[in-house]
């Protein structure tokens, strides 16, 4: 490495106003994007803490009722000592806490909801699972997101910083002088290129580490390291391609044209084509299987007689066979009907799995294009590090599903075991309901 060329590049850099401005502007954008990420993260954290507060207040109200052995005044039919009413009256929310690395990548976070009130009738595809209320036109334009800046704008910054290396000399017709002064043209280009690669890498690595420091997310050290690794490799790969373009430069504008074409091809045209292809192969899902469960099949279940319902219940929770209530000669119709949500939930799970599988087929197709569509790969890898990709929200849906199952199971077992409720048992309920 020729240190002189490398160090001299600093002069080239600061004397070129467009380059200097672009670099400072990009870094300011990065800082703004991180700030913006923090804003969204704090908004989510605040919403979540409000929810938790609300939940605590409502649980305390229920606790008061329990102490006074009297339900809500406006609903005199509610017998709070009955596990059925007690569980029904106890709210529980499942939330998706943002990862501490959230400011580094909002990813798909704005496409999904991040909190959900769980009732025994809930499902993972309820309409309140849709994204938070927001302006759709803003959503399509997206946020100034750090990952967006790194994946899509950083290559453009590199283009602005490097497009006239070797091109300017050709434009001004003193490229021969460069060649005659310097034996290896390639090492001259590499030295100049490395200067820009290094300032870019140092800046972005510094920012990623700063976010780690601010959010004390060193517990997520591996993810943070992966982010650094992805961004650095990404910059290096782009720089390598740009090196090849620069080496064969005929003028700075032709270099800029080739670089931008490369960027457009990989960052816009290929992902756009894959997206179009995927949506032709797997058009947006109207989720009719799920709608059927929600509507017709639920309707059909309500029409079933008690014995049929009981059989379904036993299939889901065989342990109820051993209970006293099961041993009785006649089935307690009210008891059976109070447990219908468990059966519906089971049907919901089957329909949801079907949808998840259809989505997974789509994802499989997307993943199979990664070898020629590396930008989508980088994007999804990045989102997975900041826990904002489809699968992170898939995990969140699983948490919700677990909670719905727990709630329904609790109702079934407590009702069939004819449990009596007191404060201690209620605290056990709370533990189960809140995972």
């Amino acid at each position, binding site marked *: 490495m020729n240190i002189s060329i490398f160090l001299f590049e600093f002069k080239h850099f600061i004397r070129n106003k467009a380059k200097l401005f*672009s670099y400072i502007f990009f870094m300011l954008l990065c800082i703004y994007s991180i700030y913006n990420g923090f804003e969204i993260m704090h908004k989510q954290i605040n919403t979540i803490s409000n929810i938790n507060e609300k939940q605590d207040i409502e649980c305390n109200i229920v606790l008061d009722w329990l102490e006074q052995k009297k339900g809500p005044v406006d609903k005199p039919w509610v017998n709070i000592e009955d596990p059925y009413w007690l569980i029904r009256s106890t709210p529980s929310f499942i939330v998706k806490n943002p990862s501490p690395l959230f400011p580094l990548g909002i990813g798909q976070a704005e496409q999904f909801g991040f909190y959900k009130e769980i009732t025994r009738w809930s499902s993972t595809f309820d309409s*309140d699972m849709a994204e938070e*209320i927001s302006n*759709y036109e803003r959503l399509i334009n997206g946020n100034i997101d750090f990952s967006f800046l790194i*994946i*899509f704008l950083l290559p453009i910054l590199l283009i602005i910083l490097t497009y006239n290396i070797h091109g300017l000399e050709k434009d001004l017709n003193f490229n021969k002088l460069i060649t005659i002064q310097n034996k290896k043209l390639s090492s001259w280009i590499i030295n100049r290129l490395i200067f820009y690669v290094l300032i870019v890498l140092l800046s972005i690595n510094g920012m990623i580490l700063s976010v780690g420091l601010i959010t004390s997310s060193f517990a997520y050290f591996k993810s943070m390291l992966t982010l650094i690794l992805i961004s650095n490799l990404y910059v290096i790969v782009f720089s390598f391609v740009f090196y090849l373009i620069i080496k064969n430069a005929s003028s700075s504008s032709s270099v800029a044209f080739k670089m931008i074409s490369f960027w457009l091809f990989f960052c816009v045209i290929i992902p756009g084509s894959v997206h179009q292809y995927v949506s032709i192969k797997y058009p947006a899902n*109207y989720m009719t299987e799920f709608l059927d469960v929600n509507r017709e099949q639920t309707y059909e279940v309500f029409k079933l007689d008690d014995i049929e319902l009981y059989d379904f219940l036993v299939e889901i929770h065989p342990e109820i066979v051993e209970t006293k209530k099961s041993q009785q000669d006649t089935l307690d119709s009210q008891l059976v009907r109070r447990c219908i949500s468990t059966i519906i939930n089971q049907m919901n799970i089957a329909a949801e799995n079907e949808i998840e599988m259809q989505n997974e087929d789509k994802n499989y197709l997307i*993943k199979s294009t990664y070898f020629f569509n590396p930008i989508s790969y980088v994007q999804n890898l990045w989102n997975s590090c900041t826990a904002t990709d489809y699968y992170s929200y898939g995990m969140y849906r699983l948490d919700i599903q677990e909670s719905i199952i727990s709630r329904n199971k609790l109702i079934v077992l407590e009702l069939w075991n004819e449990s009596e409720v007191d404060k201690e048992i209620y605290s056990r309920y709370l533990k189960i309901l809140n995972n």
Partner: protein
Amino acid sequence: MSIIFFNEWKGLFRNKLFLFFISFFLLLLFIVTFFGNIQNKKQILNQQEAKNHIRDQWDEMGPSNPHSAAHFGTYAFKSNSILNSLDEGVNAVTGLVLRLEGHKQNEVAFSESSQSLTISTFGKLKVSLLFQFIIPLFLIFLAFNTYTSEISSGRLKLLLIQGNSMSKIIFAKIFTLLSLATLLLLFTILVQFFLNINYIKLDQITRLVIFFFSYFLYYFIIISFTVFLSLLLKKSTSALSLTIITWLLWTIFIPKTVGNFTESLTPLSTRIELSEKIQDDRSKGIDGHNPFDDRKIELEKEILARYEVDSLSHLPINFAGILMQADEEFGNQVWDKHYGELYEKLETQKRNYQLSGLINPFASLQSLSMASAGTDLLHHLDFLSHAEKYRRYFIKTLNDEYAFGGSKTGERGWKASQDFFRSIKDFSYNEANFISMKNKYFIDIFCLFLWSLSLVCLIIYYSKNHPFNEY
């Protein structure tokens, strides 16, 4: 001017690289328009299938209690129109399915973008993606040195000495590139037109005309702006750097920043806040006035007086249906209040965003492009309000049947006939007519014209004041 114009075209046609790119773009536009149509039609077909499936279930429901049927509910599917394939707009992020049922208004769910991993940040390879992101760049690269190359080659002096004015020379060059962009635009619009010739009506023609003119003006702006910068900076590379930076600002940075800014100017409630407010108003009465129990007592009195009986059991009708409809109507008022506010806020945000067209013509283009394809926020809100209107008709029909269809108060198990359910009209949504919404896009059209005129003035001014001895 025409001589320079035709000479420029001759030059372009003798440039092999140019011919390659123009053929590439024509082919790409054809493919993209063609596959865009296939995808759109497939989506329309799928949606029709889902719609039929849901309707069949409704028709096969058999005799049922109307209130249960209100819970059974129905679904409104967000429809795709034939021009959606030009610009997907907000369709990828809005939900597709809206459950319509009694007692509550749901949100439209299951957006396409929530159904898979991320694929592309700039959207599907649609005509709008090419026209908004790629072709402007191509034009920038063609335009950035049209003027400076004339100076460096010394041709400018020759052209001037032959009696051409500087502004004539510059505009001839601008119109050459603009005619090239027009060719691409017209080609795409014709392909779109012929692929859908059986479905095209007057409204679609209006929309295609708006689509054409918005891009035409935007291309004029982008070409003139690039040429203006090279006129100002006199160096082609500086002009190129600055135009690319401006392109980035216009297409990526300003839309995102202004989007965030307009949202912070008119903040929206979170879903949980909104649902709490709605719940409160429904149970305690709007703003605490007229709670449910009071309303119920009043209604009971009114109905008893109307039918001149002294107890509900003596009514010839089913009071439960009336009560439910009254509650429904109250719920509608609550919904109108809160969602009315929300939609108003969204429209304010949209208006504020449109104002950014004054500093960013891309914002105006984007808005008009989505509007002409029928995929912007305003069209989506129009769909939502039609769906809600239908929900009200649907629930009222069921409640009225429950109240006046033959049952009496207390007859919970009463069932309406299958024919009655079959007689309820299905939800059908016809996209709003563009002309009826034209006022909402006035700002966009104004901004594009303002930019164009300003650039014409600037170019004329700088051409006149350009000291000759600098060359």
